[in-house]
């Protein structure tokens, strides 16, 4: 009897202990279930959507790698990795790591923007204007990512809602027409929902106008020049008309303008200058790469590993000498062009000894669009520009064609560079070519040239015929990364 009692007690104790629940409660992290409730949550959701942009894999390196290397702007130091060289040699394979990375990061950005678009509108505990501003910016970001995807890869999977379970991970391809329709629609929503207030590192109505102008110009020029894939575009003239309207909205918005001092545009202490419509923001006080940028180190030459000074006294630490300027670009400038003389320095001074860097040397003249003299360790505050005023002016010129307005716009950019006015009386085609060439000089190293060459159908005429490169595979679209092709059953 005593034994049975004891046994009973032991079993009861055992039962008591079992009652501890095996249900897992989140600890130290935020989960879908405890988020998207308040205005702070809404703000944080948008911050997260922006935070993908300055990642090293995206605008702080990867995006520049894959958009600049194929062009005549830059090449690589000899011992750079094979996947970088595939871009430089225009022979990109579907399993290229850098290609896959950019693809991934654009879609991570899309998913983060979708999370804002999908969740923030239902947060009612905040003023509608604030909520619209946040959601509108998310629409802008989604449009930007899809614009990158469609220009790099063409038709691609289309996700318009956030992925929260394994069953949602695959999506079917949208055609280029469908993707462009989404982009245009998103930008129009962004225009409607956002204001014109400047917030550093964030987009507003002006940025959405500018980006829509660029999207329209891409569609129109792609159609006009017969770029494969743009056959669906029906009315190029209407698109150019809209582009002109959008660009004019930007140029008539008084808080933005052309900075008269070319170097000031790329001065990290003047990030709020008039020319910055939308930059991907970084700051050297950040804790991890992606908060700060190392992009300048990719361009800055390695000068004895030491600190060197430029002719204007700017002191810089030796960089990685990874991206090096190509003679094709460097030699194409007018010798008086300030965009060469001021922005691509060719003299460095170490210990009072000045060296001139030759364009065919190991260390070459390099762009100072990405420099931060206040660099701490390897941490810089160099932003990556996405849309600046000069870009929009040139879009305005392109959309206006060889009209007074068109000439006025391009000549403002040329004048700042210390160049005379563009030859008057050009034909529409010659004027278009001149604008594309002006964009090459004005926007070099900023991730525009590849897209300009593609949308103007000039990949072969410029890169192959003029500069003697070889293109292996599709010149206008990179292959969809093999990882996507292998895993996405709906492609």
């Amino acid at each position, binding site marked *: 009897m005593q034994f049975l009692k004891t046994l009973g007690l032991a079993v009861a104790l055992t039962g008591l202990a079992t009652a501890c629940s095996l249900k*897992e409660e989140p600890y130290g992290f935020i*989960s879908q279930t405890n988020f998207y409730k308040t205005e702070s949550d809404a703000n944080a959701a948008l911050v997260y959507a922006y935070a993908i942009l300055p990642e090293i894999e995206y605008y702080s390196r990867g995006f520049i790698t894959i958009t600049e290397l194929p062009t005549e702007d830059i090449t690589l130091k000899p011992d750079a990795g094979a996947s970088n060289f595939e871009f430089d040699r225009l022979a990109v394979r579907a399993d290229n790591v850098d290609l896959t990375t950019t693809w991934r990061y654009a879609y991570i950005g899309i998913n983060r923007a979708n999370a804002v678009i999908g969740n923030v509108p239902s947060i009612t505990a905040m003023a509608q204007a604030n909520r619209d501003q946040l959601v509108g910016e998310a629409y802008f970001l989604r449009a930007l990512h899809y614009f990158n995807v469609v220009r790099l890869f063409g038709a691609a999977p289309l996700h318009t809602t956030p992925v929260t379970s394994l069953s949602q991970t695959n999506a079917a391809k949208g055609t280029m027409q469908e993707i462009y329709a989404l982009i245009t629609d998103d930008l129009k929503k962004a225009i409607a929902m956002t204001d014109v207030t400047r917030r550093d590192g964030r987009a507003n109505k002006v940025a959405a106008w500018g980006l829509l102008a660029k999207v329209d110009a891409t569609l129109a020029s792609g159609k006009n020049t017969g770029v494969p894939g743009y056959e669906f575009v029906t009315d190029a003239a209407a698109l150019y008309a809209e582009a002109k309207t959008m660009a004019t909205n930007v140029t008539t918005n008084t808080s933005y303008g052309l900075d008269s001092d070319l170097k000031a545009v790329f001065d990290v202490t003047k990030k709020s200058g008039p020319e910055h419509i939308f930059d991907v923001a970084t700051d050297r006080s950040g804790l991890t790469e992606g908060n700060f940028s190392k992009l300048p180190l990719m361009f800055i030459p390695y000068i004895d*590993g030491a600190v060197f000074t430029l002719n204007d006294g700017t002191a810089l630490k030796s960089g990685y000498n990874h991206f090096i300027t190509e003679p094709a670009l460097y030699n194409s400038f007018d010798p008086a062009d300030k965009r060469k003389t001021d922005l691509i320095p060719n003299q460095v001074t170490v210990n009072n000894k000045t060296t001139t860097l030759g364009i065919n040397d190991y260390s070459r003249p390099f762009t100072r669009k990405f420099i931060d003299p206040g660099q701490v360790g390897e941490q810089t505050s160099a932003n990556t520009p996405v849309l600046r005023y000069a870009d929009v002016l040139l879009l305005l010129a392109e959309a206006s064609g060889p009209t007074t307005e068109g000439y006025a716009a391009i000549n403002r950019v040329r004048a700042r560079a210390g160049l005379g006015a563009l030859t008057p009386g050009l034909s529409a085609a010659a004027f278009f070519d001149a604008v594309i060439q002006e964009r090459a000089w004005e926007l070099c190293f900023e991730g525009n040239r590849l897209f300009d060459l593609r949308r103007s159908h000039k990949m072969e005429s410029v890169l192959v015929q003029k500069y003697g490169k070889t293109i292996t595979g599709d010149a206008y679209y990179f292959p969809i990364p093999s990882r996507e092709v292998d895993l996405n059953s709906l492609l």
Partner: protein
Amino acid sequence: MRQRYFIFLLCLLLAPALAWAQAAATVRGVVKDAVTGEPLPSVTVLVKGTTQGTASNADGSYSVGIPAGGATLVFSYVGYLAQELPVTEGGTKDINLKADTKQLDDVVVVGYGTVAKSDLTGSVGVLKGSELNKTPASSVDQLLQGKVAGVQVIVPSGEPGAGATVRIRGSSSLNGSNSPLLVVDGFPWGDAGNLKQINPDDIASIEVLKDASSAAIYGSRGANGVILVTTKRGKVGKTSLTLSTLNTLSTLPSKLDVWGNPIDEATISNEARSNAGLAPLYIGQDYLGTYYPSLAELRGTDPNKPQWPYSTYWPDLVYRNPFSQSYTLTANGGTERTKFSVSGNYYREEGLAIKNAYDRYNGRLNLEQKLFDNVTAGVNLILTHTQRTGGGLGAGRSSIFPVYNTDGSYFRIGPLDYGNPIGIAENVTNKSRGFDVLGTLFVSWDLTKWLNFRTQISDRYGNSVDDNYQPRNITYTGYQFNGFGTINNFNNNEILNENYFTLNKQVGIHGFNAVAGFTTQSFNVRTSALEGRGFISDVLGNENLNSATTQVINNGGNKSLLNSFLGRLNYSLRDRYLFTFTGRADGSSKFGANNKWAFFPSAALAWKMQEEEFIKAIPSISEAKLRVSYGLTGNQGISPYQTLDRLGLARYYTGGAFQTGYGPGVFAYDGYNKIWEGVPNPDLKWETTSQIDAGLDLGFANQRFTVSLDYYYKRTRDLLRQSYITPSSGYDRVWVNDGVIENQGVELGLNAEILNGPVQWSVGGNFTLNRNKLVSLGADNFVWNGATIEMLRSPLNAYIVGQPVNVFYGYRTNGVIQNTNEGSASGLTGDMAKPGELRYVDLNGDGKITEADRTIIGNPNPKFLYSFNTSLRFKGFDLGAQLYGVYGNDVFDFNKFSPSRQLQRWTPDNPTNAFPSVNSNRAYYGSDWFVTSGSFLRVQNVTIGYNFKSNIIKGVQTLRVYFSGNNLYTFTGFHTGYDPEVQANGQAGGAYPRPRALSLGVNIGI
């Protein structure tokens, strides 16, 4: 009359004793080992047929009363044959006990209980603490190497405090752990491989549970096998005190292959740069702030310059002959009601690298008290404090330049050279301190004679603090940030409550032994990391991180819970047919919501054929046991919260400051690449291994010769894998259960006592063969395992369906290109087609060398492991030796083109096919050129000892002095100067050298 009077007096004197013990006479004497003559303490001396008796003292002496008319005394002692001694009257009777070579009735610890060795049904390896090699080993696991068949131990680093990789019966998981579960005194400690908290001198026995039947009692943690470590317990008898010391001097085992001759080094450097189209450095020039002497200057043949004064041989500066020490003081003893074992240990291991050492202070108490006749309570406590300082240092630096500048600062080759190992050793703070406690309180209650209930509560607490500071002029990080300091804190607390019944009953020919219980274990980890970047000066090191310009704080933690029901039934019929049924149900909070509970059953059958008449008819066979088992075990392998949906955190600079954001996608590292996770998988569960084992134990000539043979087949399904998911989802990877892996193999253990007279000589050996095959990887056929290796710009190890895990994947080569035609004919272009380059093979014959030409180029899994041991005893002398070998594995030798081989490089005048030309800009690819056989046979240990006679020094009962040499010599065809024992993935390069250790040990018992 006088005689009578005398007897009367005697009776008076003895009356109390007689009244108490009812003894008529007293027998005294000394119990000794029959061979060594050593006195044996704690020998039980019983009057046969009674409960009267005593135990021998530390000096082996005993004294026991016998009833009138005489009696038979029974002397018994663990490990010795019991001996009966008929006595008729009091007096002195010394007795010599013979060691029991037939240890069939040893008690073996299995999970949640013990079983007689002869009644084992599963495959269990047993090792006594005394069988461990005597050498400095900061983690006990290292000492298991070569000791137990089926257990592979890899010790890839000789760094003090480094762990080991332990595998039982192969690798059965890709992303979960492959390490066996380690259980210390019944407490499931975690993955084996880094057990620093136990002093090897404290270990009574180690049991290795290999098959499903024995490991299933540990359920979802048993799939990789289980290692049970049991520390020494107190015994009834006088208190014995033992002091064990071990003092060790170590050396580098072989001469390192580094630059020793500046002329050779400069010649090769100039040639390598010329071949790469770069200007040679050593031409007597200033370059980047460093003067590079010309070859003539180095040789002393330049008429205008004095001979170059420097020739630095870095191994002499970076390495030393370290001295290591270990002292253990143990007290054991007890009465019928109280038993105790207490020990304290100080251990200091100095590393081969200067300023590198590992210290440990360890205390242990095992105490048992009978509260009532049927209730025992007790406490087991282990306290450990460890401290590591310093670490590995490179010795491959240029021999041409000095260590210091003339002003005493560290010499730098170029402005960004922060690789001076002396500077690093002398100035970088690199310390790690740990404190661990394992405490258990238990109550054991004999409810009836055959039923026991035991309940215990254990707490394991671990705390570690890592200190690091890198001054500005010493390391690149220090330079970058103007001083860089960190403090990392780790806290781990586990509480375990176990309650179980044990039943033991023999009913006629039916024997029952059963265990049933419930356990609950909670895990709680907290971490914090403090980092400071940018300091005014380096004076404070990391002592005041608040003074740093930039401060970074990180903290984290996780909690999980494991509830389990467990049970085992051993049933024996006629002591001949043995059956074991085991099951454990584990419920873990870490498992997905749809799969919270897992059940792991197993069954085993053993047939003791020696009890059958037809075997009894062959008297030379002393044991013949056939064992078969089948069952399931699991592997948890999931981190907490992996099954939940998680939002990530990131910051973005806007509005003049960094703002914090949350959203989908959690950042993680997958080796080299950043990856994004966070899609929940509520179906996630454990991996399940089903295993069949068939074994045969044979013993001959009263166990003088024993053979144990096992065959097993393991199939693991639901492999936990980080599967790639469609990247356009915005995520990279998710944990899933798919994939199947197989292991099968043979284990053989042999032991023979060749001589057992005055000279005792035994030899033993074991053999382990495992074949591993990846059967399925879900939707994939090929997955890289591991990060991109910078030198190869590609990963190296791969999981390929149909192949063993971790095979090397890369290009084949066929010697060196001898001329330009050969280069272009090989399908190579550009620099790769030049004479002197490696000739890669165009496997698919498409006329080009592309990634499609890659194939499997090596297998790091050994074909088999083997070890031999022998021991010889004569009088007080003993000699023991152990050899350990690994055969048939490939090693990817990143040091293949070492300095001595660069001197044998290809040149137009030396058209070798063995080595390419030297070229400072060559891009290497993963190829079979790097793959070398990793087979070796190591003289692991040789021990020579002498046991002095008792009381040779007054009061000293036992005194043993021995010399032990470890890692004495390695027979191998591997790269001279490098150790072939490398990490499990077969990659060799940059490991901390394994010392050759020469130890002097003294054991004193009083």
